[in-house]
């Protein structure tokens, strides 16, 4: 089992593609790694691709929210892209709204959003 989600550094952006069903600790690890990388690289944007995720439960939702808040404190903007429609619906039904997390349909729109910021 993978114990790190890879983070790519592209220009002033950090790019994360979550391709596995993350267990909780892995999600927390990602949160730590990302904040660490933002501070070390001075990245201005974080793009998290969750198109491979078949499910976002409340824990992962909270981690995404945390990443977004922490990045904001470190002067970086976070965009979550590629959420599957079923996941989105379930999230809403579950009662999660992901307040403060910017979302975009796909990577391209997400990058644009970051570039405009």
């Amino acid at each position: 089992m993978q114990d790190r989600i890879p983070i790519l550094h592209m220009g002033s952006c950090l790019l994360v593609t979550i391709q596995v069903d993350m267990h909780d600790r892995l999600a927390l690890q990602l949160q730590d790694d990302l904040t660490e990388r933002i501070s070390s690289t001075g990245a201005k944007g974080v793009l998290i691709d969750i198109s491979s995720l078949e499910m976002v439960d409340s824990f992962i939702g909270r981690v995404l929210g945390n990443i977004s808040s922490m990045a904001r404190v470190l002067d970086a903007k976070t965009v979550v892209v590629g959420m599957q429609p079923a996941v989105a619906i379930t999230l809403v039904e579950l009662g999660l709204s992901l307040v403060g997390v910017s979302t975009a349909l796909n990577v391209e729109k997400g990058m644009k959003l970051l570039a405009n910021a």
Partner: protein
Amino acid sequence: MSSDLEIVPLLKLDLRTEPDIVTCRQHARQFAAGLGFDLQSQTRISTAVSEVARNAYQYAGGGDAEFQVESEYDGLHRFDQRRQALVIILRDQGPGIKDLATVLSGNYRSTTGMGVGLIGARRLMDAVEIDSSSAGTVITLRKNLPAKASRKTSDELKKLVVEQAPKPPSNDHIITEVQLQNQELLGVMEEVRARQEELTQLNKELEQTNSGVLALYDELETLHRVGLLLASKIDQRAVIQALIEATTDLTGAEFGTCYLRGGVQEDWTRYASAGPQQALLQCLPEIEHPDFFGPDFGSGALEHIPDHSIHAEPCCCSRFAKALFPGVTLRSCLTVPLVDSDLAVIGALVFGSAEPCIFSERSERIVASIAVQAAVAIDKARLYDSVKAASEAKDKFLAMISHELRTPLTPVLNIVSSLHQDASLPPTVREDMAVVLRNVQLEARLIDDLLDFHRIIKGNLSFARELVDVHAMIHNVMEICTSDATSFSHDLQLHLESSRHTVLGDPARLQQVLWNVLKNAIKFTPRGGRIIVRTGIQEPATLHISVTDNGRGIEPELLQGIFGAFEQGSVEGITQFGGLGLGLAITKAFIDKHEGSVMAHSLGRGHGTSINIHLPLAETEAPEVARAPAAPQSSVQQPSSLSILLIDDHTDTLWSLSRLLKRHGHTVTTASNCAEALEHSGQTVFDLIISDLGLPDGSGLDLIREIRKSRTTPAIALSGYGMESDVQKSTDAGFEAHLTKPIVFQSLLRTIAALTQAGTAA
């Protein structure tokens, strides 16, 4: 309506690790897919399972999940229309959900997810059953198969299980989990080790600080102790001895000694030494020349030579080492100057040891601090010594001058007293004589007070212990004071109400006490005042005598001091009222000697004064005869002509007494020393011998012993000392009577009469 419920178990798995949650929700998704749920429902089911499984893992420490398919046959529907549901049962053995109602109402704030767990699951599934108790929680999630999905037969379901389950449970993730946990554990242990090291380091530091603090405390304690020691001594030698003992012990020196600089030559004198090797110092001279410690010693800094054998420079220590004597090796040496407040070096402390490096920085510091205190203490001791010497000199001078002043008064008193009574003189002269007599008496009284006071200070005032009738004594004193009281037009009242009035004491002293108090009342009360003397009994067995006047009174702030010497309330009193202000001081000393108490009460200036005396009552009553000595004995039958041998070395006293006796018709032979007296006594048989006790060539006691060998002539002793033991000595030697100087001529006459009449009677 009856219905059959068929349950086909699909899978059971443990929820022990985080990845188990992931596996569980993945299974949920796969079963949902296999059962024909659409993608949206699959996501819902797996999300709901994830939420509940996480709760079981997070809050209950793990449990298990069971997947089933529930089929209901109600006989009404066709087989492919019967109700079929995917059921996931999640169990844990945790403590149960504490506030289930709160959780379900949505008011509970989760610390893990976003507070949606159970409620979210309820929204995502068709039915959620919760059975929670203290033994654990069972949550059953149920999702009905969609209507369009085909119902599965048992066989189909089993196939589904085989499709999914055959994967043997992979241990990979468990191993990874264990590895992860191991790594985490190692990390934590590393951190714990680092913390422990930090703690040990901190502990070590703390210990060092602690021992430092303890050492400081010890130092303070020592300084405090030595300070107290120094403060408690005022004698210079005692101060120095205490000082050197304390410091030598403290420094661990083999010997320590103290030199003081003084005298005209500014020599160094060795005062005291201490330590196990102090005997070494015996070989040193007591006094060293002024430069013994070198010219630089005055700078005030201490000198410490850790090892004299490798220290070549000449210094105080080397001088000391040289002085000590060649046989003794002195290696460690510490010399501390004692500097007084004027920055003059008044002494030095020297510590030495045959071992090198004995004195630590701490010893240096402590000894330096002590030296400062010691200098003050020595300064104080010197001051005390000089003050004491001055005070002693003053006392001695006072005693001497009083005595010298008193002696010439005796003949004056005698002569004036006799002239005053001499009927042959013209009345004007006798009146003048009365004035002279009164004033000479007053002066004699003042000097007697001084002498008494001096004796009180010296502590050599002793008292007779006789039964004294205080009432009788008060009458006597009243008689003596009547003329004064009359001249002031005072109203003198007696309220002697005590049923018992005998005390054990010295009659002469007690009379003086009463006389002093009454005299003061008369003196300090304006003309026409009222003075009341009362007696009464107070428990337990105490005689209370009060003398109350309505005179000038005493300010409250001065009340305390009036029993001190030379106090008269205020300065103006001295000039206005005369006297030395010794009366009450003497009164208090006498009363104290009688184990009584005397107190003054006054409501303030102008409100009169009350002096209250308390004396312990004697157990037996005084016999009638034991009246106070000055009791008037009226109509003494004076013997006519006696042949008297009078011996006194004071020429004027001898002359005046002789003259007075002659005036009373006696024949007087005088002698001024023993030899002369013996000569007279050998030649003539006298009717009476009157002799002073202190004679230039012997004592009156020896004289009377000598005379008693051949004569039984009655003899009267005249002495400056009137204690019981003195009287006893006189009687033992052979005197029939003992009179204490100053001699009141009237009492001498009475004694003469008593002796000679007794002689005639016998």
